[in-house]
């Protein structure tokens, strides 16, 4: 195996002697899995004719951690934490998809306050994820200062998550049945401060990049993906919308209360790196609109379903109330048993359509949890995108489809 790997690492496939002593070689080289601009451990096997890509083949699986198999061995209550680790730049979006799937299996609906809080958190998460994308993809193309600014704003969002859940990234804050805890005092003010601050900062990013000659030259008309190919190859999210297809799960199949909010779907026209960039930039504006509306309408009241078999009782009751103790014990040792059946729940994660296919056999553990990972499907379009492009543009293309390898490999 290892010798085989070495043999395929660098190989001259075809070569022909041209006139005047020049030679023409097709060369196969590795890009990754430890390449800094593949955003993780993606390995691309590139066949090159000079600087031009003749063929590209993605090789994935370096981050395969068996999340679907792991979930089969855990109760529904505990399998939540593995979903955080898939798209580790948008854990709350994964939590939301998982929670909606389990709630659909159980046949329950969460209170209004949880619904609104989830929308606020999911949209904050979308902005945070897009900020990482913006920073890293600009860094890949040589715009180093954007990276630092993006992470400065992302830090504000992570502070809000820390305020809610005590954890910056792997929060597991959205859970089946509602939220882990009520939104803390000060949450609303922190989010409002962010809403007041962020549009100005977003303007700064636009100033830095959108009309920047260097940025436009590196992205406009580069690595085009025609709309029909994007659909045929199963792309979703900004990769699909950048090509001009207005498909957003939040509009097409509203879930979790999104039908109550007024927002638009930015759509590109050319399907190039620049359009995908603009779509995500404009999406952040729309997320701000949604957060504003959800924050204004945020009701009081319970933040979890009133069912001690699904959500744990408050800690203070466990030491004083016999029933609460029993519920606590049952939930943490065994968990709940949704009726046998299967559901597929699609949500719009920052990367695209995140689908959870859950099969219950009536026991306390998911019989099967399959994740339709948007990055996994979007990656299929990469070889087509970069065919005929220069090696330097591969970096732009990878940045523009915004893959997270934790989700590709699961």
């Amino acid at each position, binding site marked *: *195996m290892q010798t085989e790997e070495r043999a395929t690492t660098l190989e001259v496939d075809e070569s022909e002697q041209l006139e005047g002593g020049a030679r023409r070689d097709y060369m196969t080289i590795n890009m990754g899995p430890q390449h800094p601009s593949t955003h993780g451990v993606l390995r691309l096997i590139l066949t090159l004719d000079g600087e031009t890509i003749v063929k590209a083949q993605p090789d994935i*699986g370096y981050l395969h951690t068996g999340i679907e*198999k792991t979930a089969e061995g855990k109760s529904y209550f505990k399998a939540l934490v593995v979903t955080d680790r898939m798209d580790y730049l948008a854990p709350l979006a994964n939590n939301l998809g998982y929670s909606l799937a389990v709630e659909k*299996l159980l046949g329950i609906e969460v209170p209004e306050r949880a619904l609104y809080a989830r929308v606020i958190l999911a949209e904050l998460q979308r902005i945070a994820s897009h900020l990482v994308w913006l920073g890293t993809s600009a860094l890949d193309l040589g715009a180093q200062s954007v990276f630092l600014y993006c992470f400065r704003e992302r830090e504000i969002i992570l502070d809000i998550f820390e305020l809610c859940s005590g954890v910056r990234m792997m929060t597991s804050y959205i859970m089946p049945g509602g939220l882990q805890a009520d939104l803390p005092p000060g949450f609303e003010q922190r989010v409002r401060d962010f809403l007041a601050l962020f549009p100005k900062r977003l303007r700064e990013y636009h100033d830095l990049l959108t009309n920047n000659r260097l940025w436009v030259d590196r992205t406009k008309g580069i690595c085009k993906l025609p709309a029909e190919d994007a659909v045929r190859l199963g792309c979703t999210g900004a990769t699909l919308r950048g090509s001009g297809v207005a498909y957003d799960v939040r509009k097409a199949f509203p879930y979790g209360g999104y039908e109550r909010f007024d927002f638009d779907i930015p759509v590109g026209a050319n399907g190039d790196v620049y359009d995908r960039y603009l779509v995500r930039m404009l999406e952040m504006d729309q997320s701000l609109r949604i957060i504003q509306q959800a924050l204004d309408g945020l009701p009081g009241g319970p933040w979890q379903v009133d069912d001690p078999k699904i959500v744990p009782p408050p800690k203070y009751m466990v030491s004083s109330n016999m029933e609460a103790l029993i519920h606590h014990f049952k939930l943490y040792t065994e968990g709940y048993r949704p*009726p046998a059946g299967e*559901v*597929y729940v699609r949500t719009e994660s920052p990367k695209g359509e995140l689908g959870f296919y859950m099969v219950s056999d009536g026991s306390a553990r998911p*019989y099967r949890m399959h994740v339709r990972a948007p990055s*996994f499907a979007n990656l299929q379009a990469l070889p087509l995108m970069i065919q005929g492009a220069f090696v330097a543009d591969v970096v732009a293309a990878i940045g523009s489809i915004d893959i997270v390898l934790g989700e590709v490999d699961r």
Partner: protein
Amino acid sequence: MAEGQTGPGTVALWPKNPHAEATVTLVRERFPDAISDVVEYRGETTIIVRAERIEEVCRALRDAPELRFNFLADITAVDWPEREPRYDVVYHLLSLETSAVIRLKLRVGDDETPNPEIATVTTVWPAANFFEREVFDLFGIRFSGHPNLTRILMPSDWVGHPLRKDYPLTGIALPEPHWGGQIPFDQPLPPGTGAQTLRTPDGVAEAPAPPNDADDTR
């Protein structure tokens, strides 16, 4: 919540897709012998199709002018080892134009065919490429006509298919020296590396024969 009991507002919460009836009718009319069952649960419609007809049914659904299922959202599988046929292969179809949604399911696999073979749908939607490779990798279901049916998530020399329910959860035999000591790069790995043993409370059980390495092209 007791088993089988559903919460308040179940019906209103998960409305049926408006195109589900039309889809079922279309498949029933065009392929009366291919459809074996229609299941509904929580507003989601599943058509259970005979395995050998899947490609035709998919093509017809994609080309049906009033439905236009132009988008393959997902392919996956479920293993039911006690049941025969053993595997469910599940297709989630979507139309970006009409917002129609349908789930197709087929059942394959018995004792004689540990690696059942079904027709690929990459000819209908190229998106199926990665999804089918994933199902092949993790379940060992083969897709005839697939352009590049190789492992995608597991290493190419892996034995067995991890998402099968009978896949051992512990016990991979590691070479001597253990991974703590490096094996020189150009030396061959000792025989038996990667072979799976099942560690039980009574000690190491006999290594189960790799489920299907005879006809496994890896």
